């Protein structure tokens, strides 16, 4: 039963992941991502991590994806061609594809260097039992994993500041960087770049 569910959820997660990439409308990408999160949450549950499962739904499905939708609706994004036209930035999908593929090819080379033969892998036992107890989780987090926890808080602060620094409106009188990035090569500010 659990195994069947695991495979069902995994297939669901992968299918949703493919949907995120394949969907032409950003809104459907978001919905597919939502589906993937649900499947992942189900897999966590199967593995016995209740808290993780709930947190996954709470944080990603309940909050982050809602903000994604909010942004997509606010900008009223249609299909992807329109987005490319609006932003004026052609992110070369080809380059990205090459990079992604080369990671795959790289892995394949790695396999070849390793030699052949697949034996069932005896995975090391993780501390699955008891970690889901909220208190155990909290104690682990604030003792053994305290440093990464604090580093993560710094990471979030930094990301927040970085995003605000990029997104905040420039004050009047500050030189804007246009064209090649130099204040005295004054090009007319077009509307898109002031956004």
């Amino acid at each position, binding site marked *: 039963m659990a195994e069947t569910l695991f495979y069902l959820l995994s297939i669901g997660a992968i299918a949703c992941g493919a949907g995120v990439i394949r969907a032409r409308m950003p809104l459907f990408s978001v919905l597919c991502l939502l589906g993937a999160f649900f499947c992942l949450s189900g897999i966590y549950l199967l593995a016995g991590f209740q808290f993780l499962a709930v947190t996954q*739904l709470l944080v990603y*499905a*309940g909050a982050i994806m*809602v903000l994604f*939708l909010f942004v997509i*609706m606010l900008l009223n994004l249609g299909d992807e061609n329109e987005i490319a036209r609006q932003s004026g930035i052609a992110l070369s999908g080809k380059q990205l594809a090459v990079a992604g593929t080369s990671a795959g090819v790289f892995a394949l080379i790695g396999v070849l260097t390793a030699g052949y033969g697949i034996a069932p892998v005896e995975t090391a036992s993780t501390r699955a039992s008891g970690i889901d107890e909220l208190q155990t989780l909290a104690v682990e987090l604030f003792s053994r994993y305290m440093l990464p926890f604090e580093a993560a808080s710094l990471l979030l602060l930094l990301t927040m500041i970085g995003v605000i620094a990029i997104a905040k409106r420039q004050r009047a009188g500050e030189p804007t960087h246009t064209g090649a990035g130099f204040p005295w090569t004054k090009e007319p500010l077009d509307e898109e770049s002031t956004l």
Partner: protein
Amino acid sequence: MEDFLVILLKVAAIYGGVIGTAALYTLAERKVAAWIQYRIGPNRVGPWGLLQPLADGVKFIFKEELVPAGANKLLFRLAPMMSAVPAMLTIAVVPFAGDMTLFGVDTFGAIAKIDMSAFYVVAIGGLGVYGIILGGWSSNSKYSLMGGLRASAQMVSYELSLLLGILSIVVVSGSADLYDIVDAQSGAIWRWNAFQQPLAFGLFVIATFAETNRHPFDFAECEPELVAGFHTEYSSMKFALFFLGEYCAMIVMASLTTTFFLGGFEVPFWADAPWVIQLAAFGAKTAFFLFLFLWVRWTLPRFRFDQLMSLGWKVMLPLSLLNVFLYGALTSFGAFGD
């Protein structure tokens, strides 16, 4: 076999009860409104107008269904369900009563008992917003879209305060199981979290109003500005589903406030009351909050949207964090240890 039947019975009773309450609640809304405004309210269908919800239901079924041109048909149809289902799912873990024996089977007064139920209710309950956003977006109408946008911003903002309120309760109770949380409040009336954590109580209640899109925070369907907000384009049973989802969400929120802050099904001064009495006590407490929703709606004016946002982020969130910090510190110094 009997176990299974008892579970089926509980499911039927709880869902039937909740949907019945939701139906009656629509009537109560109009009756209370009438009472506050010195009117009489619906009184033609059945005694005191009690059959009015039924008549409304029949009316909805016979109304014409419209799908606006240019609407995304799939999402337009899905949205009402996505709004009603999460509210229904959350009811599954709400403890309506303590341990009980039904037909010789020992059981408890909820559909399911899970360890993380305190977080489960927020996680699943928070998904109700998708129905509203997607309904607003798929209608292909600017009023609906505005309603959906407002709902999403509002619910994400206030979910934080809601969750942080629950967090401080979980910290103090030492468990995320709703039954344990109720247990931790048993014994005496001052052990109720409403008295132990008045700040969290106040913030939680305010946040529930925002989460259910009720007055004074009902910006998703604010009539003077947005016609009817996210459900402007909906009619017939789809509209009824939205309606049902909204009222179910209110019932869930009221019963959660009861569970978290008013000792749930605990009967004051009667520790081991039979489950029927517990159920009645739970109903009474919940009814108070349900009444509060209506009372506020018909007496307070609506906020402005930027006021709502600044209240959420600049007042409620810092206070909630302060509250969590305070009660975390108190707990770690053993103030609630027993």
